């Protein structure tokens, strides 16, 4: 099979979700019925997450050189995102459950679901928020990085993976394998990317 024949972008994901959601709404089909039949597609999320190890290992050379910067960046950024998400919902008068569903959206969708269950949020809302964040990143990342004058594929991948979770990573991989590697790393460590890291990461390259 030609691998390029199956390139799924953020727009495809967004359109599919809206379309399927609309059809389910119109026909009055319960989500559980749909999900049972889409189980196979959902199941592939697992092996696909494991598969991120391959670009990670293949580009380990790049990774080693920028490791201190990456580590620093991810730690700082993750705190900003989680605390910021909760605080913003509470400030704007949202409910506790919505706030807690916001916290783990920086990580991959499966982790977000898991963490939300533990802290008392709504798992399906967390999944949707994680995906929405990913779509947001996919739409904006190129112009944002251009605006910040960043041309480093590693920064691209890290930013996509940390801010945009799986969708962001999928977006990064479709551009460049090194970007995909850093997106995988970001997801694996479930941390967020911090602005200052670019300078630090560059100083180690």
């Amino acid at each position, binding site marked *: 099979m030609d691998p390029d024949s199956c390139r799924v972008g953020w727009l495809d994901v967004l359109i599919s979700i809206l379309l399927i959601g609309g059809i389910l709404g119109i026909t009055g089909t319960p989500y559980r019925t749909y999900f049972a039949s889409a189980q196979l597609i959902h199941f592939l999320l697992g*092996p696909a997450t494991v598969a991120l190890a391959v670009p990670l290992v293949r580009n380990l050379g790049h990774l080693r050189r920028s490791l201190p910067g990456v580590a620093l960046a991810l730690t700082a950024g993750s705190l900003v995102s989680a605390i910021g998400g909760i605080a913003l919902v509470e400030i704007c008068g*949202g409910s506790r459950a919505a706030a807690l569903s916001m916290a783990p959206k920086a990580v991959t969708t499966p982790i977000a679901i898991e963490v939300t269950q533990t802290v008392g949020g709504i798992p399906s809302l967390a999944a949707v928020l994680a995906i929405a964040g990913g779509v947001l990143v996919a739409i904006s990342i190129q112009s944002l990085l251009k605006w910040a004058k960043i041309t480093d594929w590693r920064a691209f991948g890290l930013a996509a993976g940390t801010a945009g979770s799986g969708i962001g990573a999928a977006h990064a991989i479709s551009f460049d394998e090194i970007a995909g590697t850093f997106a995988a790393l970001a997801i694996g460590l479930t941390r967020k990317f911090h602005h200052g890291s670019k300078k630090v990461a560059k100083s180690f390259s």
Partner: protein
Amino acid sequence: MLKAFAILLGCQLVGEFLHRIFSLWVPGPVIGMFLLAMLLLRKPSALSEPLVSTTRMLLQCLGLFFVPAGVGVIRNLNLIGREWIPILVALVGSTFSFRFS
């Protein structure tokens, strides 16, 4: 390709196993990702051409695999309708905050 898929599923299985046994909050597939990375580092010959092409194919379709979970939005329409302002502000705010902090 079948063998490559078996390797991926095997890593996920072991990851899932560790996740359950030690009740870790990191999900099985993510543990599986680290296991596969360690395996490939110890034994670089395991990084065969079928494994590379299979994973590439899977990763290019990564977005598709999020669709079933994403459709779950229809179950939260009430909550989102009620609290769409805080949710939208926080979603945009926390996604971009790291770049301006």
